């Protein structure tokens, strides 16, 4: 999925997939923080935006 | 502006919701701009497009008679996406209405004649607009005897019970016959399918017009039964239901042969119907 997203021109880092078990609370927190930081750094997404209205 | 664009709905407010059956509700609606009534002027048997804004539109037949002023009624069965949403709506909420569309029941041609209405399930909804029109005091003298034959799967599935068992039987020279498909506890009325009950009653075709609407399978057998009883093709009137989007003969999906049901129908006599390809 990530590869096809990047193939059509989404920035690498816009899409993340992680396998996290229900018992890995720390990993959830870390991943969420990391994803938020990386995506925020990329700025607002322009691809696939529906600008109607 | 509104009148220039037939695809732009008028805003209306739901004023009353009546639970008819587990999956049918009747919605009473009033235009927010009362002036719209003066131009709307629907005739019995016509349909309208009901909008839920953000969801879409659906074609619904107008079930109230034009003799009832200042409001419109629509009986809606929950079958799809839009009808599921509208079933959640309450008085005070707003929808869109555009129309009226289609031809109408030939009530002029019916003058002086006895009328036999044959309905099944939600199929009574369009017939009701004509029944109430004919029974209205200002029109009653124009028509002869009125008989209404109506059936549903079970007693719970009967629409307009207040009309069937209260309003209509009280009218002069009017008879109502109700049947349900299968026997059930507490039901002492007739049991059996509509076409079978029709053959049992065997109404005389003399000076009579029948108007029928219901599920396709019911219509098929009712038409056969009527022909057997000697009704001519002009004495049988039916109203069809097809998927419609625009309502104004442009979007293309409700055609039967060269006819568009939304402008040339939905009301056809059996004679007209027989000239159409069997695609309905």
């Amino acid at each position, binding site marked *: *999925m*990530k*590869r*096809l*997203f*990047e*193939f*059509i*021109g*989404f*920035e*690498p880092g816009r899409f993340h*997939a*992680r*396998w996290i078990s229900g018992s890995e609370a720390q990993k959830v927190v870390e991943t969420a923080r990391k994803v938020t930081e990386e995506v925020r750094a990329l700025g607002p997404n322009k*691809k*696939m*935006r*529906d*600008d*109607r209205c | 502006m509104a009148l220039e664009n037939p695809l732009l709905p008028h805003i209306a407010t739901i004023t009353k919701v009546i639970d008819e059956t587990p999956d049918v509700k009747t919605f009473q609606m009033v235009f927010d701009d009362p002036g719209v009534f003066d131009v709307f002027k629907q005739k019995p048997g016509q349909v309208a497009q009901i909008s839920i804004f953000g969801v879409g539109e659906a074609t619904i037949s107008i079930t109230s008679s034009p003799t009832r002023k200042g409001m419109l009624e629509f009986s809606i069965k929950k079958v*799809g*996406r839009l009808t599921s949403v509208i079933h959640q709506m309450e008085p005070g909420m707003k929808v869109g209405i555009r129309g009226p569309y289609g031809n109408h029941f030939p009530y002029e041609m019916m003058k002086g004649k006895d009328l036999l209405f044959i309905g099944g399930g939600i199929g009574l909804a369009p017939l009701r607009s004509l029944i109430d029109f004919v029974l209205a005091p200002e029109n009653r003298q124009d028509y002869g005897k009125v008989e209404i034959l109506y059936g549903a799967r079970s007693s719970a599935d009967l629409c307009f019970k207040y009309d069937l068992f209260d309003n209509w039987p009280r009218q002069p020279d009017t008879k109502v016959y109700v049947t349900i498909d299968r026997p059930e506890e507490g039901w002492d009325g007739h049991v059996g399918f509509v076409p079978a009950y029709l053959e049992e009653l065997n109404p005389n075709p003399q000076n009579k017009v029948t108007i029928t609407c219901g599920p396709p399978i019911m219509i098929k057998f009712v038409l056969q039964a009527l022909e057997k009883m000697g009704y001519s093709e002009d004495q049988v009137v039916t109203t069809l239901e097809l998927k419609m989007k625009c309502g104004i003969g442009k979007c293309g999906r409700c055609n039967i042969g060269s006819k568009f049901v939304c402008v040339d129908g939905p009301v056809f006599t059996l004679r007209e119907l027989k000239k159409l390809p069997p695609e309905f």
Partner: protein
Amino acid sequence: MLKEKIKSTVTELLENKRIDFVIGYGAGSDAGTVRPAFVKSVEEVEQLIWSPFAVNNLAKFVMDHLYENIKIGVIVKGCDSRSVIRLVQDKVFPRENFYVIGVPCKGILDKNKVAKDFDLSGDLVDFTEQGDEVILKTSKGEFKLRKEDYLLDKCYRCETPTPVVYDVLLGEEVAPFRTDDYEDVKAIENLSVEEKSRYWDKQFEKCIRCYACRNVCSACNCRDCVFDMAEPNWVGKAANLSENTAFHLIRAWHVAGRCVDCGECSRVCPMGIPVNTLNRKMIKDMKELFAVETPGKNPEQGPVLGTFRTDDPEEFM
């Protein structure tokens, strides 16, 4: 000649009632076009032809006969034969209801390439192949061309010129003459993020949402397609860049691991969108990640994304 072999094979099958009908190729509107022919009786066998332009993948047509107790003969080239495996593996159409008439394929001519240099507007009367050359005899004249110059792009990288599955094979096996290097995919991979985005935006903007790519696809064999659903309305019907992109991404993912790379989606697109390049990107990735073969090539290999192996790469852990 292949045409005669096809006819005699089908005649025999129909006479012995071993099949109910056969889906083969008939003459099309012009010399460069074929049209599917559905032959139910010996009298109709005359309609069948073979043509160097026989590009259509006929396997998908069996889907009009699901749940029928029927045996259908289908004429397949190497690429199309992968679709047969696909339909059987997806349990859409059982193997025993197929009678696969395999045609070893030396490459199909690209009508658009040939039409640039030769007049294909007549009828195809006959053709002969001599080594590397094809002589097309049409009602508008005879044309000699070097096959190598006019093949469909997909034929230059064909892995299975001989059908991978068949009940009868009409001719000698043909060895693949090149391997697939995925140059088309790599060319796009090597673009910058912005260039990739611009390239695909341009492509998806053209889409008119006719759904031909879906309807022709043998991996698109769902009973109810997500794109036909009103509820939930996953992809809107509006043809704009956003909805079109969603359509193409969802389509590509839905056939991932099941697309047999027959290239029909790109061929039928009326707007020239390289639809199949998205599928090929995923086939390439899956080959790299899971060391698998093109779906449908190996009947033993199940659907790639429906198979778990403990040594699968775990990029997402």
